[in-house]
């Protein structure tokens, strides 16, 4: 099955590691992600005002384009997923909004297409039990904190992604890769979002609480599917370490990077320049078994 792949802006800028690990993982899993031509920024935020549709015009255009391709849209960024899924539902359920958006975008799209997160595609098309059999580098003993953030889970009646109070999908993925999913209190608390621009201290408090709670639960690494969560969690750590000498840094990764590593699709699925906290020390123990003895020098 071919999907209309919507990478989103961040992936072509700050999150090349997310982009490339997604491409390599999808290829290894046989999920065909065909990047949509001429896609536009999703708007990044789903507007709270119900009578202002400008914020979703761009998303509506993307959705109509995917529908014209006859493909379900797949995204990996939490924000892109959130905005597209909700806009799609708006067009399917609100006649008035649909008429306005269609008139503005000059399409006749009715919200009947599908918007999926890559996690949902894996859950549906492959299944986490079957995923276990595709793993070449089981991440045995690795304790992973699956961090959901806000945008993947709520509002549940619109996203229909997972139980927002007791989500499972990241844990299922982590366990499917042979790692150990740790349950931590702050897995769906806010990371501080755009406060990192206007009030960095407040954002650091939010991120710090998440990282400390993951650490208390024994995590060695945190995974997320949101570039903004990634930024906040990763970037805050230098400051947190300055304030608190006890603070132990915790590497942050996109879930696809762990996926690519476990599938043997990418030997070192991160770009050091993109990480404040280097995941190397934690992840370098997981390597593809190599045939020649010369390959293993340690």
């Amino acid at each position: 099955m071919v999907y209309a792949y919507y990478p989103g802006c961040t992936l072509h800028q700050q999150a090349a590691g997310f982009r490339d690990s997604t491409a390599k993982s999808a290829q290894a899993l046989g999920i065909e992600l065909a990047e949509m031509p001429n896609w536009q920024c999703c708007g990044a935020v789903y507007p709270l005002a119900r009578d202002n549709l400008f914020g979703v015009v761009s998303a509506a255009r993307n959705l109509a384009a995917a529908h014209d391709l006859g493909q379900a849209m797949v995204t990996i960024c939490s924000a892109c997923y959130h905005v597209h899924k909700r806009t799609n539902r708006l067009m399917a359920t609100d006649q008035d909004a649909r008429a306005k958006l269609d008139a503005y975008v000059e399409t006749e799209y009715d919200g009947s297409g599908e918007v999926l997160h890559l996690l949902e595609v894996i859950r549906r098309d492959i299944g986490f039990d079957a995923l276990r059999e595709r793993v070449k580098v089981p991440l045995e003993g690795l304790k992973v904190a699956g961090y959901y953030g806000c945008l993947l889970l709520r509002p549940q009646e619109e996203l229909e992604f997972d139980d927002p109070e007791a989500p499972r999908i990241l844990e299922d993925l982590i366990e499917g890769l042979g790692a150990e999913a740790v349950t931590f209190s702050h897995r769906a608390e806010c990371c501080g979002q755009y406060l990192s621009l206007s009030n960095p201290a407040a954002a650091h408090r939010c991120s710090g609480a998440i990282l400390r709670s993951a650490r208390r639960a024994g995590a060695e690494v945190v995974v997320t599917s949101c570039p903004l969560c990634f930024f906040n969690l990763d970037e805050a750590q230098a400051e947190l370490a300055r304030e608190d000498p006890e603070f132990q840094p915790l590497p942050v990764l996109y879930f696809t990077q762990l996926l690519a590593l476990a599938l043997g699709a990418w030997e070192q699925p991160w770009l050091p320049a993109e990480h404040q906290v280097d995941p190397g020390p934690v992840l370098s123990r997981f390597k593809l078994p190599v045939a020649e003895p010369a390959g293993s020098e340690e």
Partner: protein
Amino acid sequence: MSRIGVFVCHCGLNIAGTVDVERVTAALATEPGVVWAEDYKYMCSEPGQQMIAQAIEERKLDGVVVAACSPNMHETTFRIACAGAGLNGYMCEIANIREQCSWVHADREAATRKAVAITRSMVEKVRGDEALVPIKFAVNKRALVIGAGISGMQTALEIADGGHEVVLVEREPHIGGHMAQLSETFPTLDCSSCILTPKTAEVGRHPRIKLLTHSEVVEVSGYVGSFKARIRRNPTYVDWGACTGCMECMNKCPKRVPSKFDCGMGESKAISVAFPQAVPYRPQIDRDSCIYFATGRCKVCERVCPTSAIRFEQEPEYVEEEVGAIVLATGYDLFNKALVGEYGYGQYPDVIDGLQFERLLSASGPTAGAILRPSDGKVPKQIVFIQCVGSRDEEKGMPYCSKICCMYSGKHARLYRHKVHDGQAYLFYMDIRAGGKGYEEFIQQGVEEDGLVYLRGRVARVFPEGDGLMVWGEDTLSGRKVEILADMVVLATAMVPRHDARELAQRLKVGTDAYGFFSEAHPKLRPVESLTRGIYMTGAAQAPKDIPEAVAQAGSAASKVLALFSGRELEHPPIIVELIPDLCSGCGLCVEACTYDARSIDPVSRLAVVNDILCQGCGACAAACPNGATVLRNASREQILNMVEALMQDE
């Protein structure tokens, strides 16, 4: 030529405010056949009824139309008034000019014209009416009570003490319901068992109570005074007649299972009796966990039984009971806690519900009354009680208040403090609803004497922290976030209808509300009757309620049954359909149209027949009949056409 009287009611200003009552009276006075018309401020009052009676006698009326409120309101009142004056009550008809006219219109002129038309059409109806007498039928003076919790047992005992035989059906192998699981009861803290077990014993030995445990009512037919119930007796795999209750089988059974009676807090065996005071004190085999049923080998119980009472081959048996009245007392279930994922019930062993906490408190429970938390058996030093879990929660739970949780959470916390003196109890609440005799005082004592800490606010999340549970909540009175590291969390979950209450309601043709609680005929004036005559309800099957209320309602239901059984015969309203056999083709459309099972095709004559007692006089079959063979009494085709014509007339 008929002599009809018309009586127009002002209903204070309810009708007169919108309808020109005098004009209606004057218009009707000129109708052919109307010999008397008058109006009065309150026709239903004693003077109003007197006016009607006087007119009947003085003007020799042979028909009466009262233009007033809905017939649901006062039709019976006026018919009795007419009968008192010597006029057959069925010669009195009500023209509804309140609910269907004055209340729904604002234009006085139009409303008056409509009131005239409505009243005129009823005059046409009365013209064609016949004097009718109620149908008398016999009543079988045995009662069926479904459910043997406190409410059902109390109903059964009161009917039986009143001199009538009762069939008491209980799904579980023992009686007592949820009350048997409770430790102490609020607001007196008297032990639940001490007040319950004398009753279970009395039910067990009462000569007029036929107790059918491990049984379910699967089918009900018939009508008030003459119901037939088919009851399935589920196998216990033990011959209870041969069994002496020595419980050697339970002692020797190798298969341990979580105890259902202890809500998983303790252990039981695959063959067991739920608790030591159970009535009847007889064991049953849990087929799903029994080794023999799974593998075909074991039979330890059979070997050790001194009276050879084990019967692995037992099958369900069906029995039929004929009764005159049925009381529903099926009780409640607890809300599905998986729907509130943030509290982690089922995920963290030390998050339990109120009923599980009762089992920990109970002297006959798995810990013999010691408060020990499930995960490691330690005495919890900090307990958080969360109220309104699933109650008053439109988003995830039930919009209603479960009514008993404020009281039992307060009770739990107090009993905990009485047992663990250095322990601390926190209670998160929305409002404290302690309406009831001695209830508010009980809550206050909890705060003042037992040092309970009440926090007004909701809990957002519970998650493990070390070997405890971190509880995030808010205290809305101080406006602060609260974090409590607790050893144990107790959820006061909503009371919900039994999972299969709707199916039972369908089988008995009684209504349920939006949630599945049985619907009473009137929320204030007929609180224990269903809309199906002869079927009553009591206890938490009708709505969440506590023990005192469930018992009071049981008495009320029993007195209704006793009143029904007090006469030799019952009466059924004579407004039912009749068949003109010569016109009937036996097509069966009336059978399809009837929702009361009152119509059928006679297998011999191949013609339709009417069950007079089941017929509610709705007229659906009369409308469906293509041949005009079915006629609703006092609503003949001719009458209806005349009524329509009267409605079409100009004033």
